[in-house]
């Protein structure tokens, strides 16, 4: 969206706004912004997920170091999704068919995966709850 803003500013001869015409400039900015978002926002999301105890269920495969993975939160894909969507919306020309197609693809598959994860986590929490209830009955 910034593309359109700076295009407008350019028509007013605002200095420096012509940079947004160059794809290489916008590519660099998108790369830096997505890195910044994933690093800064990522920390908060990781902490939030840890607090919510959204841990992945680890299949028992008999592999080394498997138990240490218990309790690691899943759904970190949220970090990836947000740091793809925000820079794209800001720096790309959204009217281009390819861009909105890819945005749709990201949101669509992200949503499906999120529901998948959510159902898994929810089932696990429910199961844990039942187990703890049974234990307390005794």
């Amino acid at each position, binding site marked *: 969206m910034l593309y359109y803003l700076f295009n407008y500013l350019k028509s007013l001869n605002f200095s420096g706004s012509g940079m947004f015409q160059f*794809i290489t400039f916008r*590519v*660099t900015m*998108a*790369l*830096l*912004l*997505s*890195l*910044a*978002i*994933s*690093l800064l926002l*990522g*920390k908060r999301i*990781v902490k939030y*997920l840890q607090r919510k105890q959204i841990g*992945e269920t680890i299949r028992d*495969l008999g*592999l*080394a*170091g498997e138990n*240490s*993975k218990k309790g*690691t*939160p*899943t*759904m*970190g*894909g*949220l*970090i*990836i*999704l947000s*740091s*793809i*969507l*925000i*820079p*794209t919306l800001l*720096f*790309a*020309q959204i009217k*281009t*068919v*390819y*861009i909105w*197609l*890819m945005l*749709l*693809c*990201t949101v*669509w*598959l*992200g949503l*499906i*995966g*999120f529901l*998948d*994860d959510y159902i898994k986590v929810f089932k696990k929490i429910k199961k844990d709850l039942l187990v703890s209830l049974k234990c307390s009955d005794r």
Partner: protein
Amino acid sequence: MLGQIGLGIIIGSTLYFNDNVVISREIIGGKKLAPYERTVNHQERVTKDGHRFADVKTPITTIPFVKNHEFNYAKLISWMGPGAEKYTFILYILIVIVIITAVSNGANLTDGLDGLATGVSAVIGVCLGIFAYVSGNIQFAEYLNIMYIPNLGELSIFIAAFVGACVGFLWYNAYPAQVFMGDTGSLALGGIIASIAIIVRKELLIPIFCGVFLIENLSVVLQVSYFKYTKKKYGEGRRIFKMSPLHHHYQKLGYHESKIAVRFWIVTIICAAVSIATLKMR
């Protein structure tokens, strides 16, 4: 699964029917277009050495390793009769669905070790970014003699954000992982990679640059089918790998998981370099 099919239908039909999805192709003399192809705007672009180009809507893709040959999906169906080419879109959409499902499934399987799927996707993203940038830039496309696709440069911005997101996520996902991406991330990564490959018309290169996803997918398919086959034949199931997907096989062999992950990245870098080389090497 159903979601991937739905997405495949949307992407396939948009790419096939949308008037903004065009490629620029040279017109030689008064050569006529096939009945299923059409020019979108009638402006012609003339290069310095007198070649004429026009924006054409046509379902073609690049064949790697071959010069000046592009594969037209209509050729797959034209043997069925003279009018059959009109129905190319059905075939095209089916192919798109298969590609998207296969690649996102591969990414989902690959996501089993700390940092494995993230790093592999980042490398593939860089490779796709180069494809998108050179196909969308008229000078590069002319120099490399590849398909020029108007407006594709915008896509490289999306890919840059994608690479940045992968690398940023790797910060937290690297061994020992603080967070897993889950299906939320892996399905999206695979689907994005597949869709971009289709948009830049390099889908025949997917087996090369998505080599890791392919072998992970294949290892599962081989393992399961061999197990079932031997169970039927000998009464007991036998295995090819100690465990599938492939990265668990190496884990069973005693490699440390971060070593496996880094080695898989290196394999992907080699695959990506080979597929970038096909731009010039043909």
